[in-house]
């Protein structure tokens, strides 16, 4: 198991498979490339790498190729693959870890729209403790420049009382910010170690 933040392994000497085991606790070597994960994946028709491809590349130590590929960002985290994998390989969790590694390695790597969304969402949580959708959509659109997309529906939301206009930070917002910082700190410490190694 990975020891978070404290003495996380350096990726230099570790094969990707071993690092994955550290991060997720799962043994990707158990994958026998049956493709059952990809057969059920709702995004398999849209991505270049399907879950079983991802598993194979992990086992082949194709770090750079995996981290640079958009496919890992196109996972819906629906867990269908994991649920049906005969070997308990957990492709969904493997994708999680790959995204995390991609961000650690190069914060700009994910597809712009998706990253913008995740950033916008998490920033809200960080600054108010919760998310509120109108601000989220606005922020996201600012970041992506997709100003007109979906705008038509916003008034409908307002009319139905579904969008609050003003975010109220919760009382514990300071605590939430601290949690964000602590997590970042821990992650930085981990990757710092890696670079040091």
């Amino acid at each position, binding site marked *: 198991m990975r020891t978070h933040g404290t003495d996380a392994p350096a990726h230099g000497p570790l094969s990707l498979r071993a690092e994955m085991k550290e991060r997720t606790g799962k043994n990707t070597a*158990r994958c*026998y*490339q*049956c*493709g*059952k*994960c*990809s*057969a*059920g994946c709702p995004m*398999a*028709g849209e991505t270049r790498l*399907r879950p*079983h*491809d991802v598993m194979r590349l992990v086992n082949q130590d194709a770090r750079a190729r995996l981290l640079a590929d958009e496919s890992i960002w196109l996972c819906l985290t629906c867990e*269908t693959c994991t649920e*049906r*994998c*005969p*070997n*308990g390989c957990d492709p969904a969790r493997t994708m999680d870890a790959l995204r995390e590694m991609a961000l650690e390695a190069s914060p700009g790597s994910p597809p712009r729209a998706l990253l913008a969304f995740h950033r916008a969402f998490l920033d809200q949580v960080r600054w108010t403790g919760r998310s509120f959708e109108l601000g989220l959509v606005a922020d996201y659109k600012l970041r992506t420049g997709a100003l007109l997309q979906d705008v038509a529906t916003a008034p409908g939301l307002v009319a139905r009382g579904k969008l609050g206009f003003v975010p109220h930070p919760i009382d514990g917002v300071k605590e939430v910010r601290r949690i964000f910082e602590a997590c970042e700190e821990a992650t930085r410490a981990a990757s710092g170690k890696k670079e040091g190694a």
Partner: protein
Amino acid sequence: MARIGVFVCHCGENIGRTVDCARVAGEIGKLPGVVHSVDYKYMCSDPGQALIKQAIAEKGLTGVVVSACSPHMHERTFRRAAGGAGLNPFLCEMANIREHCSWIHEDREAATDKAIDLARVIVEKVKRNVPLETIRIPVEKRALVIGGGIAGIQAALDLADGGAEVVLVEKEPSIGGHMSQLSETFPTLDCSQCILTPRMVEVYQHPRIRLMAYCEVDAVEGYIGNFKVTIRQKARSVDETKCNGCGACQKACVVKNVPSEFDERLGKRTAIYVPFPQAVPNIPVIDREHCAYFKGRARGMKKDACGKCKEACARGAIDFAQEDRFVTEKVGAIVVATGYELYSIGKDQPAAGLKGYGEYGYGTVPDVIDGLQFERLASASGPTAGKLLRPSDGKVPKKIVFLQCVGSRDPAKGIDYCSKVCCMYVAKHTMLYRHKVHDGEATVFYMDVRAAGKGYDEFTRRAVEEDGAVYVRGRVSRVYRDGDVVKVLGFDTLNGTPVEIDADMVVLATAMRPRKGIEKLAQTLSVSYDRHGFINEAHPKLRPVETNTAGVFVAGACQAPRDIPDSVAMASAAAAKVLGLFSNEMLEREPTVARVDAALCAGCFHCERVCPYGAVEHKEVRDRKGNLLKVVADVNPGVCQGCGTCQATCPSKSVELMGFTDEQIYAEVNALAL
């Protein structure tokens, strides 16, 4: 006073190179009680053995120690030599100064010192050895075969042809097992019934086979050569001595819609039934759970709800009052051949850790069937008389998808092993299908094709090359009903594309598992089984049909997934083993068995609880007037295998393992201290 002779072997250079054998003989010669100590080049050679015999005769030795190779190598040789010279063979032992010394050390001095120690230890032990007599037990030359599938049938026939009496116990109303359900069989595609039925009849008619169908083994006592078996004869409600198998009762039966086990629930049978027309014995059974008469009885009805079969039977064979009966049989050996059942695909699971395939819709989508159901659909004796028609609407399926490895090679669903026969039977199914439906499309989802047998790969290739089966490498994620078709969502891992097929029928190639209740039978027989429930062989390579209980053998698919050729080979091998056993009038056993000192024994029976073989019995101790003084433990030397666990457990040290007594072992430990 002990008079021990010690013989130190050079084994040519094998020992002599690193161990100074002369020094060993010299040092050991100085020990008290050692009256003769020599070294010699090859102790196991004829002159070497002659040295021992000569010394026994001339020096009046009371014990012999051969310091040479491993006792596993030559203990028998030297014991025989000692016995030949009139010394009790069990007064001869070996010190292992080759495998455990000269071959693993280079330093001559250290090796020689160690050799001296090892020899001294055995000298001290032998001083305390007592003469033992080889145990001889008589052999009952009858065999019990449990399970009447092809494996049990083959074993029974080989045994009976070899001259042994056989009791064949089958729990179903008829013998035949799964093979009787199959349509045609790989790798030759010959008709299963055609080759099986004659053998079933042969069993029935063989003068040395007692066929006990609709029976189960209830209890087993005793040991190799001398088992006492209690067999439950389940109530058929039909008097076997009167019935002539005319079938009138079945025609008359009012209950006609019981799902047929033989047809894998794709057909129906009556409440009084024979599983299939070629059944052996051809005597019906009343299924009391479904029979109107018995259901009425259970509900407390005064008037009998039915009795049509009884009216119809001209021979007065129907006997509603019949009850289970118990029979005991004495046998010398047992062959377990209880076969397999299929992995349960639906929601109901027979054991913890097994999960069905909710994603494949089996049990809710009627056109998703398992392998045996396909066999029944393809079989001329099946519910559709051999026409391939799908269960939901009786249409001819134009597109069938076969999924391999269902249940097997799937740790997440509870089984990690490969079921071995399903690759073959899927190939067979595609061929049978294409032979019956010429324009049908057969698609197989597979991960690997495992066809390692004589003519097997050729067979699967034929399915592809000549019969046009389409093999897609990948596992299927989901199967569901979509209007008239069954949708199959898979992935072709070789060309990297998702595959979606609208099939008319889906066949799941389900894995073989051990029979329900096998664990209980195994415990009754004291044989071990693996974590799945397959019976363990004594050694995976060298003793494949023996079990770890002497006198109990195993054959067929109850030991691991097997096809018919393997099951038959195994059955013949088991029969040969049993016949070998029966070729002796008496069995000889090493006398390293436990013995209880009745005077000391406190009757706590800790020994009984730990004995892995159930060798400890209870014995009453009475005074001269016959008053019961106490109950003590008594070890049955026929059953005891000499593990010594009882002795290590006994609080009062009242049980001793001959050949490894406390006194002997302490002497060894003490001898190490110098």
